[in-house]
């Protein structure tokens, strides 16, 4: 197999890239910021990456992506800490950890919970990177044959999946996605050259810029949302001693860690799946598998090991669709997608072959990142807990100013500041009213690709849309698309019929 010979060399080159001092430094910065962001309730990794986008402009592309990805998987480590210690989930993917993690903490075994979580996170992340290293080039080479119809179907499916599995109402997520697609049409039409929806404004002639939208929607939107009184009761600081699990705990969790790694890896690749879903699924699996399920909720180590491993594995594998197909799997990946565009790298299957240093540099940096995070999560965890004492009222204006001034530095344009504020308001309103902003950004980012592919496909098919189904890949993807779109409606019909039957049965019993 001559692909094997090609495989090794760029991977090794990737390691040389990673070990450059600048990249190591930015990796450290990224994972540290990520861990801090994960610990702090309020700002999430998507918002933080969005706010730090302006930094990516001045530095090397590889360095930028190494840092941004570090923030993402670093946040998975940090979120655990507050879940265990304070019953306060720092990240959505750490909510499940509260059940058993906090129980362990109440039993005085907080150190065990944190230690198991850290080890599980490390194993999950590392296993995922290894699997990614083998799978990604395969997927990319497979996708090189994709044409416009395949991309249309893929983009459609990706947007639908993210909207479906996102938190909150499916309907509202679809609205958000549609608005995102609509926003992508603003500007010059690539096919005809005409201007669309620019209202004569020169600033809009080239289309809406990604960076202000991301920074506003996720960054300012979240800060404005947090302004409203949402007081969590404060707790006294706790000392975290002995963050290392016993040998028995390790042995008990080993199965959960193994299962969590696989489960997380698989679910992370699925657009919309991701870390949160993986943690939920892993918990359900562990509880179902266990011969003593009543321990769960009372401090079962598997209940911590499984989800924590899975969410890290999923966070890592969610890079695959982005790096191999150019399709972001979740909102954070959409922001990173935008970052890649901003620094001039076009994500897609050609990334592996055309920019191997970037591709392998980023992937291999994750090994180092995970090691750094393991160190920070075990001996240094006490330091990170200290940040919980900072009052959010102090962080808020700092973040606002970083965002407002930072967005200016991208294009030296005051209009961008206006844009970021407008989208900040939109982001606030969306969060307030139950619309997930993630699908909007994802759809916006994919909008250009989607429309282009769609129109090219129609040109190829000479207007006959049914021909999408004649090609094997686009056909399959579209069938899946229709299934996912229509399944819940069918499911609801079934559920209503079943509950009607059950009611008939119970009335029969009463009689």
């Amino acid at each position, binding site marked *: 197999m001559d692909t094997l010979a090609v495989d090794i060399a760029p991977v090794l080159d990737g390691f040389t890239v990673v070990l450059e001092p600048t990249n190591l430094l930015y990796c450290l910065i990224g994972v540290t910021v990520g861990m801090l962001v994960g610990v702090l309730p309020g700002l999430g990794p998507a918002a933080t990456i969005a706010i730090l986008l302006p930094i990516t402009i001045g530095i090397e592309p590889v360095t930028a992506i190494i840092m941004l990805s570090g923030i993402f998987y670093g946040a998975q480590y940090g979120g655990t800490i507050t879940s265990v210690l304070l019953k306060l989930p720092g990240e959505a993917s750490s909510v499940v950890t509260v059940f058993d993690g906090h129980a362990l903490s109440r039993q005085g075994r907080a150190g065990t919970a944190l230690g198991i979580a850290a080890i599980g996170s490390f194993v999950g992340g590392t296993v995922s990177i290894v699997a990614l290293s083998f799978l990604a080039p395969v997927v990319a080479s497979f996708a090189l044959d994709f044409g416009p119809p395949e991309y249309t179907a893929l983009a459609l499916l990706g947007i639908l999946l993210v909207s*479906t599995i996102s938190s909150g109402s499916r309907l509202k997520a679809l609205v958000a996605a549609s608005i995102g697609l609509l926003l992508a049409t603003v500007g010059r039409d690539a096919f005809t050259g005409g201007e669309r929806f620019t209202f004569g404004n020169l600033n809009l002639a080239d289309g809406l810029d990604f960076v202000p939208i991301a920074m506003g929607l996720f960054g300012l939107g979240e800060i404005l949302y947090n*302004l409203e009184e949402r007081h969590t009761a404060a707790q006294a600081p706790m000392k975290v001693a002995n963050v290392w699990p016993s040998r028995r705990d390790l042995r008990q969790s080993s199965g959960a860690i193994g299962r969590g790694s696989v489960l997380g890896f698989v679910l992370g690749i699925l657009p919309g799946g991701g870390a949160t879903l993986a943690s939920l699924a892993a918990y359900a699996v562990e509880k179902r598998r266990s011969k003593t399920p009543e321990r*769960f909720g009372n401090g079962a180590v598997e209940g911590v090991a499984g989800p924590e491993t899975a969410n890290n594995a999923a966070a890592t594998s969610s890079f695959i669709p982005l790096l191999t197909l150019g399709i972001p799997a979740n909102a954070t990946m959409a922001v990173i997608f935008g970052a890649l565009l901003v620094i001039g790298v076009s994500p897609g299957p050609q990334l592996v072959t055309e920019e191997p240093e970037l591709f392998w540099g980023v992937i291999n940096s994750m090994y180092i990142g995970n090691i750094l995070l393991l160190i920070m999560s075990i001996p240094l965890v006490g330091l990170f807990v200290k940040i919980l004492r900072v009052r959010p009222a102090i962080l808020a204006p700092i973040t606002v100013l970083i965002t407002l001034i930072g967005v200016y530095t991208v294009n030296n344009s005051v209009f961008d500041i206006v844009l970021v504020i407008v989208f900040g308001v939109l982001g606030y309103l969306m969060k307030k009213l*139950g619309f997930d902003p993630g699908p909007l950004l994802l759809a916006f980012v994919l909008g250009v690709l989607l429309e282009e592919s769609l129109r090219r496909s129609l040109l190829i098919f000479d207007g006959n849309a049914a021909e999408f189904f004649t090609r094997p890949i686009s056909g399959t993807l579209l069938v899946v698309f229709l299934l996912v779109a229509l399944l819940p409606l069918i*499911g609801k019909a079934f559920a209503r019929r079943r509950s009607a039957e059950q009611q008939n049965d119970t009335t029969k019993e009463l009689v």
Partner: protein
Amino acid sequence: MTSAHDGAHAPTGPGGSTAAGASPLGADDAARSTTAVESPSTLHDLEEAVHRLEAEAEHRPPAAGPTTNLVVATLVVALGAAALVGSLSLGVGSARTPGSGTWPLILSLLIVVLGLGLAVTARSTTDAERFSRSSLLVLAGLATMVVFVALIGTIGFEIPAALLAFVWLRFLGGEGWRLSVVMSLGLVVAFYLIFVAALSVPIPHLF
């Protein structure tokens, strides 16, 4: 929401079978969970427990009433309608020769339909939050940002930034006078040193 998740799980491997197979056993679990232990086992129960936990941890405001939901739905429909008009004026063409406005037309129709869907479910929607007095804080925060961007062109960033920081610290954050003043000044100095002195960013500045 449940059915959507179950549907989406079907294509995957390990997680899928448990979730799909969980439904018939869900009833048993529900009966068992009346005992003291809260820990849920089916994916559906898990989601509910997660939502409950998040709500507890966050102290979210109460849900918005049907009026708010209807207003939201109307706004969405209006947006779709406006986009519809705009797309028509751009020229729609046909499936064979798509014009500038074809894709926006599809999208606007979709938005209108979805908006109508929102209107229909307005009464049963519970995931929107009610606007309250603390929403005024958001308005105030927004106002500081508007003032910032309005003034930055004429008097540079230092004064608007200091004002913004002061308002956020003192009035929106409830910090003390002295801390607010000291921090606002400190922040502006820091930003000046980083952006103007170190990075030489051409941001409008006074000093």
